[in-house]
């Protein structure tokens, strides 16, 4: 039997209120400023690098995203700070309503729970999007001002595609934080668990993944004798590492921002290189095709986490 009325009733109201709350909250202001300041510093160093090393590069704007002092680039900074920002947006979204005792009052209004959850999630995602758009404009503006090179169409397209990828990456963490805020009635528990998962997946998992790979497919000693890695082990390591959104994001962003990149994996597929001119940039469509699996995995992550939260939230007791 279909339920009566639209699940979207009240969605707009919740969305606007949550967006207003996020944008006017001190928490977001501080985090946003932090990201902007760090990004400006990194981009400044990147510009310095470009000035010194690059003679002529058709994609000089994209270099702003990928270079910087030593390994620290804008991509790296975003991969670290955005999860924190997304977790900060989501960790108390549902349990906060319970703790303020506003939940049952809001749900006794003529709306479905769908509207509340979707409104909150999309408001969080929009907040992240606004921040990213500002950041993008800032970086492009910096490039034009300090390098004096007008950005080309493909550069704009690639950097915007990268921003969408970044949004999907941030969305994964937002959905995770919201799921935890539904499951746990305590905001402190939710934020600690979220940060724990983030630390684990970002910093520990790359090492653990290789360890597990060696267990699943022990390297053939003949490769070791030649000083080579066993391709099966490496493949397993790669597969396991890709369970971490951080790995997916970094892999795909390199493909988008460095047009000469032909593959996201460390395994060389000889077919991919047949007839290739070394160092020649790929067309945008090819880069998008290579980055597509990672992007889809991130988007799927967002959807799976959101749906999990949705199911738990629908069946949850309203009573505090």
């Amino acid at each position, binding site marked *: 039997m279909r339920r009566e009325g639209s699940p979207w009733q009240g969605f707009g109201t*919740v969305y606007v209120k949550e967006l207003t709350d996020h944008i006017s909250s001190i928490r977001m202001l501080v985090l946003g400023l932090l990201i902007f300041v760090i990004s400006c510093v990194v981009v400044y160093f990147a510009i310095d690098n470009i000035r010194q090393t690059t003679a002529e590069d058709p994609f000089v704007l994209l270099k702003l995203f990928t270079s910087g002092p030593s390994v620290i680039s804008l991509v790296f900074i975003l991969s670290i700070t955005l999860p924190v920002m997304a977790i900060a947006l989501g960790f108390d979204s549902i349990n906060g309503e319970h703790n303020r005792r506003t939940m*049952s009052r809001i749900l006794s209004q003529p709306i479905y729970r769908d509207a509340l959850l979707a409104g909150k999630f999309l408001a969080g995602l929009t907040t992240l999007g606004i921040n990213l758009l500002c950041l993008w404009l800032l970086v492009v503006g910096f490039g034009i001002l300090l390098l004096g090179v007008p950005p080309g169409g493909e550069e704009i397209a690639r950097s915007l595609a990268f921003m969408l990828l970044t949004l999907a990456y941030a969305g994964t963490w937002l959905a995770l934080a919201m799921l935890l805020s539904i499951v746990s009635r305590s905001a402190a528990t939710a934020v600690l668990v979220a940060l724990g998962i983030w630390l684990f997946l970002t910093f520990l998992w790359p090492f653990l993944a290789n360890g597990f790979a060696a267990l699943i497919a022990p390297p053939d000693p003949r490769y070791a004798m030649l000083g080579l890695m066993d391709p099966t082990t490496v493949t397993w390591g790669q597969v396991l590492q890709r369970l971490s959104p951080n790995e997916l994001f970094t892999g795909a962003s390199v493909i988008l921002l460095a047009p000469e990149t032909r593959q996201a994996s460390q395994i060389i597929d000889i077919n991919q290189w047949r007839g290739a001119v070394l160092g020649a940039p790929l067309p945008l469509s090819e880069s998008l095709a290579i980055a597509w699996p990672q992007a889809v995995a991130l988007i799927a992550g967002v959807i799976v986490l959101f749906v999990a939260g949705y199911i738990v939230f629908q069946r949850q007791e309203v*009573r505090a």
Partner: protein
Amino acid sequence: MSAPVIAARGLTKRYGKATVVDGIDFAVAKGEIFGLLGPNGAGKTTTILMMLGLTEVSAGEIRVLEHNPVREPLAVKRRVGYLPDQVGFYDNLTAIDNLAYSARLMGIPARERGARIAEALERVRLTDVGEKRVKTFSRGMRQRLGLAEIVMKRAEIAILDEPTSGLDPQATVEFLQMIEELKHIGVTVLLSSHLLDQVQRVCDRVALFQSGRIVLMGTVAELARQVLGAGFVVEVEADAATDLDARFGAIPGVGSVVRVGPDRYRLTADRDVRPEAARAVVAANGALRRLSVDDPSLMEIYTRFFRKQAGNEEGKRDAA
């Protein structure tokens, strides 16, 4: 009596093996104040949540304003106002902003919103503090703001869950007055409480809950007759040459006459027998000094009922 606005038949709620609400039947008529009474954990709040479609019904049926709250929650929630136990508001918003958010969720058109918010605040006497943040509000003011939300909604049924618990006596009296005002504008009120004297003061009928069942239901006088045997206790203090016991005992409706002092008698009757008692004293040439009647108190009914029940159970155990 017109068709009931709330009707429950065999309403049951189970959590796993525990039955929280166990096959209750009741009906609330339009325009009455109906009290749900009982100790904490007796199933009052669960019953309320089932009426609003906020929790699923395990068995039986409930209809609110001719709708099934499980299948048509929006239709029910559009016409029913709910004030949860310890209602919460967004502390950093003003009273008016909080109401404006609910008004949008209710789907009140923008041009009516301002007037309806002002009218609701006026009714609960919060007009002066409308622009103040809810953070600064006392418990009583929050409770009144919750009532304002119901007024603004123009709800046909107001469901109030423990509305006066934790309020000081002054705030309690004011709040009860407002509940009566709701009745005057034609709202049906369903009130849950464990504070018996307050329920007695405002409710037309009450239902007494005990571990998920309604054990008693009716007006206070009816309950008194059921539980205490008789509803009215009349005390007479009079001098008379002759003994008055027999004369009092002859009055129709008097159950028992007890002599509590040299010239004092206590009459238990199923109606107010003061006129007859006075006539009896005068007829015996006595001097009437005092004549008073105690209304049956819900407290007495309540304690007597539970004592009786405990006694019965003990009796059963002894017999076994």
